[in-house]
């Protein structure tokens, strides 16, 4: 038993750190977030060249065929650099659903161009007034293979070539330029990952071969990957804050010498490391098909959803007035953290899911331990 990264995993993570620090520095994040799409074609083709766009997909679909832990590590580094654009939407969300639910022909048609960096895509899941993806919800209507209805909070739809639509009748793929598709921007907090309303009016769509189970497994993988990204964001917020606490002086001393400040930093560290443990385990459990994989994903998302908000709060508080300025980068992480907190189910949603999957089903123990 060994719960640490292998040499090749460490190399992948280090290389990703270096790659994004060069290709996507903070100034670039700020430039892209002010654009309509947060998408940079040059950065995208660099990422495709690295193989990132096909990281977990089979080699015969043009991917690298790496494991789910490797995906989480890449996402961690993307969260650290807060890379803007449609990687999560395209590779993690759409790619995972296509990989889980597409037949050979559909994978060739949709997944292969994703791996090659030629297509961008997203998944439309969340309905009006809904707080989470629900494959059983029937409000997007499918009739004669055509879709009618509306989905909200669809990430990066404006730069997607095609959209995977989750309905109670299965998962469908439609071209984003197909007749009857209307995409409009939502004005959400995180400018680095744009969200949109997508409306379908008698829109032609192709049904994916897989079942709801496949869709849910893909969403679990995307959720674990999102937690990986959140961990990277927490790590960066922690480092920025510790650096500031070492240099900012008040009362003639670095503020990091005051325990009230140190203890906030220590809590940031504790919550970041604990989120990391949960994210890595969830990825490993999904990779192994462990019986507790779904619970592990919910534990990770539940914990990290609260932790990324707490880490942001502590980081900004330690910065004092500087933390409240537009100029300081922390609010970018804070905004991303809020968007990620609610995406794919917030902490309360995942607590209820843990209760259903792990607590309701628990058998009574024979005896109790004496607690101390």
């Amino acid at each position: 038993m060994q719960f640490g990264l292998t040499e090749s995993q460490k190399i992948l993570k280090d290389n990703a750190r270096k790659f994004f620090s060069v290709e996507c520095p903070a100034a670039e994040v700020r430039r892209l977030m002010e654009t309509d799409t947060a998408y940079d074609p040059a950065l995208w083709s660099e990422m495709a060249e690295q193989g990132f766009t096909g990281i977990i997909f089979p080699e015969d679909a043009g991917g690298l065929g790496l494991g789910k832990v490797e995906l989480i590590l890449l996402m961690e580094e993307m969260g650290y650099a807060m890379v803007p654009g449609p990687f999560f939407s395209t590779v993690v969300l759409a790619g995972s659903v296509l990989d889980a639910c597409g037949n050979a022909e559909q994978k060739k048609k949709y997944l292969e161009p994703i791996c090659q960096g030629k297509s961008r895509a997203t998944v439309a899941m969340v309905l009006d007034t809904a707080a989470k993806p629900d494959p059983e919800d029937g409000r997007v209507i499918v009739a004669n293979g055509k879709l009618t209805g509306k989905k909200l909070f669809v990430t990066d739809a404006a730069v997607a070539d095609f959209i995977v639509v989750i309905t109670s009748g299965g998962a469908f793929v439609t071209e984003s330029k197909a007749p009857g598709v209307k995409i409009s921007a939502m004005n959400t907090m995180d400018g680095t990952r744009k969200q949109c309303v997508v409306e379908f009016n008698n829109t032609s769509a192709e049904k994916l071969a897989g079942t709801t189970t496949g869709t849910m497994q893909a969403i679990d993988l995307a959720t674990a990957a999102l937690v990986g990204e959140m961990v990277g964001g927490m790590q960066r917020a922690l480092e920025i804050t510790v650096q500031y606490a070492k240099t900012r002086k008040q009362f003639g001393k670095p503020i990091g010498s005051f325990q009230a400040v140190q203890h906030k930093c220590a809590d940031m560290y504790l919550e970041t490391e604990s989120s990391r443990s949960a994210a890595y385990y969830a990825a490993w459990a999904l990779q192994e098909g462990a019986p507790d994989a779904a619970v592990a994903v919910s534990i990770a998302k539940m914990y990290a959803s609260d932790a990324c908000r707490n880490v942001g709060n502590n980081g900004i508080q330690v910065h004092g007035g500087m933390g409240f300025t537009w100029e300081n980068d922390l609010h970018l992480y804070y905004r991303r953290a809020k968007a990620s907190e609610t995406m794919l189910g917030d902490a309360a949603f995942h607590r209820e899911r843990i209760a259903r999957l792990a607590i309701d089903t628990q058998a009574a123990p024979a005896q109790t331990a004496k607690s101390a």
Partner: protein
Amino acid sequence: MDLNLTAEELAFRDELRAWLKTNVPKDWDGRREESMESRFEYLKAWQYKLYQEGWAGISWPKEYGGRGASLMQQVIFWQEMALANAPPFANVLGLGIIGPTIIAFGTETQKKRFLPKILSAEEIWCQGFSEPDAGSDLANLRCEAQLDGGHYVVNGQKVWNSYGWAAHWCELVVRTDPNVPKHKGLTVLMVDMKTPGVEVRPLRQMTGETEFNELFFHDVRVPVANVVGKVNEGWNVAIGTLMHERGTFGAGLQVAYKRNMDRLIELARKFQRNGRPLLEDPLVRQKLAQCYAEIEIMRLNQMRAFSRISATGVPGPEGSIQKIFWSELNQRFQQVAQEILGPYGQIEGADNHAVDQGMWAYGYLRTRGNTIEAGTSEVQRNIIGHFVLGLPKSY
């Protein structure tokens, strides 16, 4: 990253599991009302049996009576012991903390002399660290030892000592040089508790028990051969001890928490509010799920830490997050239990309305000490701030 047990670990676990199945005594839980002394004799006999059959000191070297297995096997051992509801070891501090310190810092003679008897429970150990004026500021301790020929002569007082009433030996931190900065004049001694001048006074705690003691030393003569590590370098030895306490001590604890969690879920099915089981109340479900998740994350944090210690050989300052995590989680968990039990949560043992013989009332009170003992949460956060994050010292 591979969290599956290796073939060797699996074989070890299966052998242990089979042994525990036939050898774990069934009468331990029923002894809750017996005297502390008689319970301790029982645990010593149990530990002796474990030692004789090769189950004590899993990761300790074979030449000192251990099994010579890996740290991961040691972790599996604690987990399996808790899963089997096995009674604990009598020599908790000797096994978990003092033995590893002797292995790291002791001389060959000391290792041969002391380690096997720690494992067999023939010699019980305690620690003399904290003093009335040296708690979080441990290096401020005053208990002094002056060289007199072949002996150190110890005078002073220690407090918050566990197992002093049962111990044969004490790992004692003393000041051997008062004329240098406080961290530099300390030395660790092994003191025979039967030496004239050692006095143990019980300290009654808020649970009503007397787990802790005050120790008094009046002209206690300790042979120089009983110095652990180097004279005036005792701070490093003491920190090594404390890192074991923080880094590796909690493996069995997590399984015990899980068992308590299982029991609490059972109680939430049984106890009702507004005519329905509490387990159906959405707020209770949220709180139970939060505890469930945190207990699992405690396990994952520990597994990552153990993997790191396996690679480096020594626990580091990042072990402080384990201490913060288990202690604060345990307090939150006990409060959730109190909310589920309502007024029944306050009933201590010896009352026929008590739930689980009063273990929840006891747990609520006892866990109050968790964030204080073994280094307060505040000191742990100082350690993370300074030694892990590199922030300037606050004191």
